[in-house]
Every structure is written in structure tokens, then in C-alpha cells.
């Protein structure tokens, strides 16, 4: 596709439920990043993939959060036993090779846990 695609654009879920957020990066981009943005704040790093492997997952807040990228393209961010504090905008970005090249962001998934 022309840009980074994230689905769904909005997700409302009940506390305790499991959710999956999908990111489809720009074709050919080997690096993929997940960020989380709370209202009125800048994005915070969650996890970075180079190819299929998670090169850096130090930003994941706890073991309820997990992300995969099995074929080195589409990635899924999975959140178990959601809590109200997980409510935020989840942003995905991709770049070519990673490193000092600009990252292109998707439109984000707004997650609301009620």
C-alpha cells in the first residue's frame, strides 16, 4: 500500500478482554515500530522489529503486552486482560532498514477500555 495501515481505527473493549491491533507497513520497509500515545503527550516507544525478530522490546509496559511479526511484514500488537489504563492511541511506524532514516506513521488505533 501507499502508506502504513492500521486496523481497526477505533476499538472499544471491556476491562479484562483480549485485543489485537494490526499494522501493515509500507512495502519493503524492514523496520517496524509500535508506540503508545496518551492524550496530551508525545508517543512512547513500545517495541521495534527488524525483519521478523523483535530487536528491542524494552518499552513494553508489562507481560500483558506482546507483539509479533511472523513474516517480516504485518505486525500484531496483542494486549491481554486489558485495563482502563491501557486506553490510548497505539501508533505503528515503519522505515527502510531502520537507523537514521525517517519513520512513516500510520493513522493509529484508538483503544478505549471501559
Amino acid at each position, binding site marked *: 500500500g501507499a502508506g502504513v495501515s492500521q486496523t481497526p481505527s477505533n476499538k472499544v473493549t471491556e476491562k479484562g478482554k483480549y485485543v489485537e491491533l494490526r499494522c501493515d507497513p509500507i512495502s519493503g520497509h524492514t523496520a517496524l515500530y509500535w508506540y503508545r500515545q496518551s492524550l496530551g503527550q*508525545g508517543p512512547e516507544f513500545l517495541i521495534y522489529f527488524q525483519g521478523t525478530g523483535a530487536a528491542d522490546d524494552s518499552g513494553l509496559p508489562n507481560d500483558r503486552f506482546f507483539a509479533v511479526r511472523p513474516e517480516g511484514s504485518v505486525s500484531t500488537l496483542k494486549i491481554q486482560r486489558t485495563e482502563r489504563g491501557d486506553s490510548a492511541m497505539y501508533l505503528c511506524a515503519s522505515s527502510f532498514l*531502520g537507523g537514521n532514516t525517517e519513520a512513516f506513521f500510520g493513522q493509529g488505533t484508538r483503544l478505549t477500555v471501559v
Partner: protein
Amino acid sequence: SQELEQSPQSLIVQEGKNLTINCTSSKTLYGLYWYKQKYGEGLIFLMMLQKGGEEKSHEKITAKLDEKKQQSSLHITASQPSHAGIYLCGADVGQGAQKLVFGQGTRLTINP
């Protein structure tokens, strides 16, 4: 914790006026990125600066990185309603170029 400070946090200017947004770090920046975000949407890449003293321009927006590579400014000339939005600076602070630390953002409003 935030390692980048943006100022001001919000800015209201009259259409046609010039404005400047600043981004400051206590650490050396290895790459400085400026993004724009419409409320509730994703980030749009504006410019990337890497070298001390570097300056880049695109249309009416100019970004600079100081010689010490600890401060960047974004300057908009003759502002237009289309410039309204949230401006975010993001930087590689040496933790790995793939992990950006962002400032809290500057909300820009343009009054007609």
C-alpha cells in the same frame, strides 16, 4: 520519562504571523525528527536533522539543529490555517536509532 522538552506547550498566532517552536535535550541528539499531528490522527514526517548546525526548509517551514546538537527549533513563516496542529520533536538520544524519544508536543492554533 521525558528527555525532550518542547516549548511552548501551546501557541495561538494570527494568520500571516511568524512563529517558532523549540525542542531541547540535556543529552546529545544523534538524530532529530520533526512531525506534525492532527488531533486524533497519525504523525506526518516533516524533517530530519543529523548534523550540528544543520538547517532544512520545506515550503514555509524551517528547522535547525544547533552546533552542540542539543537544541532544535522549528520556524514557520507567514502562518496559514493549514499549519494548525500538534508539532512533535522526536530524537535518537543514543539508545538506538530505532527508538525515538518524543517531546510532549506543541499545539498550534492559527486565528484568521
